[in-house]
């Protein structure tokens, strides 16, 4: 439980770690989706390649777009890019830095999908089984070209009646899986080496500029968050004043119409009047009806002049 709490607190501590958290979740989701997916190669001549390559490349595009959508910083970056210059200069280096960091984070889940697909092997077996040279395999070397093609197309389907106990099928399958896994591990190695170099070599080039751009990109992010929080706070105070003003104006109307006895009490209102002078069923009904039919104008200048903002 404590560990859980610590993990949450760590991820909430700043927006970068929130982004890292979301990125991690997407990566896990991509592995989970792949394992849940029921891969069934069609084992038909042109469909195999389309299906295999489709499963390998279309979900990564969707995951990449998801990574961009879920990342709050992409919106911040776009706003910074498109805003009119006004009194504040625009620094393209900051925008480039933000763009790079967003792209890097968004590319992790698709890369994991592609690597898992390659390491598993089913996609490549499905896509390229009919591109294999049949002469290399004993069971297919004697068949005519057309027959060999037909058999090769059915290699990915283990339960197919023609292929059920075929040793050549297993041979082709192993061959393709070997290629697929080699490709997968190579890609993984390349990514890790690239990440390693990127992380180690950046301090050698232009560290001061990097510190500046990182600072200002953080600043823009924080500034936007604080602006939203301030707007929320402001709208809360605005609403509070508006409602108090409304109750007071109702009270004034009541006094004005009832010529009343309540006027004598004006002097006694030392304490805060929680009832706002509304003490009757009809008055309450009238107040609620007025609230619906005639909402007060969005103008609390009168109210704030009488009640200093400290209240």
């Amino acid at each position, binding site marked *: 439980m404590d560990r859980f709490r610590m993990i949450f607190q760590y*991820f909430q501590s700043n927006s970068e770690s929130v982004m890292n958290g979301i990125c991690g979740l997407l990566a896990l989701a991509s592995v989970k989706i792949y394992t849940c997916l029921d891969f069934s190669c069609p084992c038909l001549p042109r469909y195999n390649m389309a299906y295999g390559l489709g499963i390998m490349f*279309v979900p990564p*595009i969707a995951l990449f777009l998801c990574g961009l959508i879920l990342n709050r910083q992409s919106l911040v970056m776009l706003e910074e890019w498109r805003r009119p210059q006004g009194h504040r200069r625009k620094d393209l280096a900051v925008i480039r830095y933000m763009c790079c960091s967003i792209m890097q984070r968004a590319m992790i889940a698709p890369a994991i999908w592609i690597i898992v697909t390659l390491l598993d092997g089913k996609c490549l077996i499905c896509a390229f089984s009919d591109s294999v040279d049949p002469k290399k395999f004993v069971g297919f070397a004697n068949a005519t070209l057309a027959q060999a093609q037909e058999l090769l197309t059915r290699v990915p389907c283990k339960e197919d009646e023609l292929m059920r106990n075929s040793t050549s099928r297993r041979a082709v399958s192993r061959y393709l899986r070997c290629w697929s896994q080699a490709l997968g591990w190579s890609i993984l190695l390349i990514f890790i080496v690239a990440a390693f170099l990127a992380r180690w070599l950046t301090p050698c080039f232009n560290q001061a500029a990097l510190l500046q751009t990182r600072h200002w990109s953080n600043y823009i992010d924080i500034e936007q968050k604080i602006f939203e929080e301030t707007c929320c706070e402001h709208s809360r105070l605005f609403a509070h004043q508006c*409602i108090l003003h409304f109750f007071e104006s109702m009270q004034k109307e009541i006094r004005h119409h*009832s010529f009343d006895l309540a006027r004598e009490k004006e002097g006694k209102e030392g304490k805060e009047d929680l009832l706002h002078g509304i*003490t009757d069923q009809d008055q309450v009904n009238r107040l609620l009806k007025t609230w619906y039919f*005639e909402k007060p104008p969005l103008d609390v200048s009168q109210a704030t002049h009488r009640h200093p903002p400290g209240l």
Partner: protein
Amino acid sequence: MDKFRMVFQFLQSNQESFMSGICGIMALASAQLYSAFDFNCPCLPRYNLAYGLGVLLVPPLILFLLGFVLNNNVSMLAEEWRRPQGQRGKDMAVLRYMFCSMAQRAMIAPAVWVSVTLLDGKCITCAFCTALPVEALGNASHHGLSQGEVKRVLARIPCKEIYDGQELIANEVAIRYLRCISQALGWCFVLLMTTLAFLVRSLRPCFTQAVFLKSRYWSHYIDIERKLFDETCAEHAKSFAKVCIQQFFQGMSTDLAATHCHPPRKAPTDAGEASEKLLGITDWGTMNTALKSWHRCKPPLHLHPATPYSSNGWAGEWQPPAQPPTQPPAPRREVAAYYSGV
């Protein structure tokens, strides 16, 4: 339990993560609902299409409507749309913003249902098995079966146990083909939805940022104003009830004192707060009378201000005084102090 609380706290920490949390939960619920659903293809020629497309399209519609029903802001939107203009202008941009953001949230569960259905493949297999291209995949020419017969045979493809058309077209081949088409459609749908979401989200800062900031602020304002108004009314109702009940007890105590021809007992000064709280009712008979009176004859919803004479007619109505007062005159009611500091 703790874990739930922490997840909720994390999600509520800011508006954005709260909304993302809600979307995630709805997506998971939709996927779970699909896996709990027991799909039973009827394996009959025209019923297959109806059942398959029904399962594909009807639950998303229900989930979409449910998304609106469960959203608390729907009543807020309806109220803002229908209220009379009065002294406050209505801003269509704010209404559009509120509607769009609600519709976007409501579309997530249906989109997940359709994606999961298509990626699973059972629906499309059931719905379109009679439309298989038998010439390409099987042996169409070897059987003298009529069109209707062929369709009846093909309709049984999803039900492997009763399928009898193995010579016409192999069951596995047919299912593989249909499932491949279904998954292709599914991934295309997922890609389409994510592209749309991406475009909607990224085009906004490029074109309408100022309008967006305004609409967001005022829609948030309307929400907060409504909540604060409800809170203020609740506080008012509480104070009203307190005063009303106090006045009732005092009225009771004074009445009983008058009936029994002795002055209301003065509390000794050193008993202080406790005797004040007794509100002048200090014995079994008096309390029973008070309780009976509360049940039989609740006091009117009209708090008396502190005056020397009783005020009956002035319920603060500002209709012309020609109208008779709406409450019956309260009998023998001496006015007690009007507590404003409750």
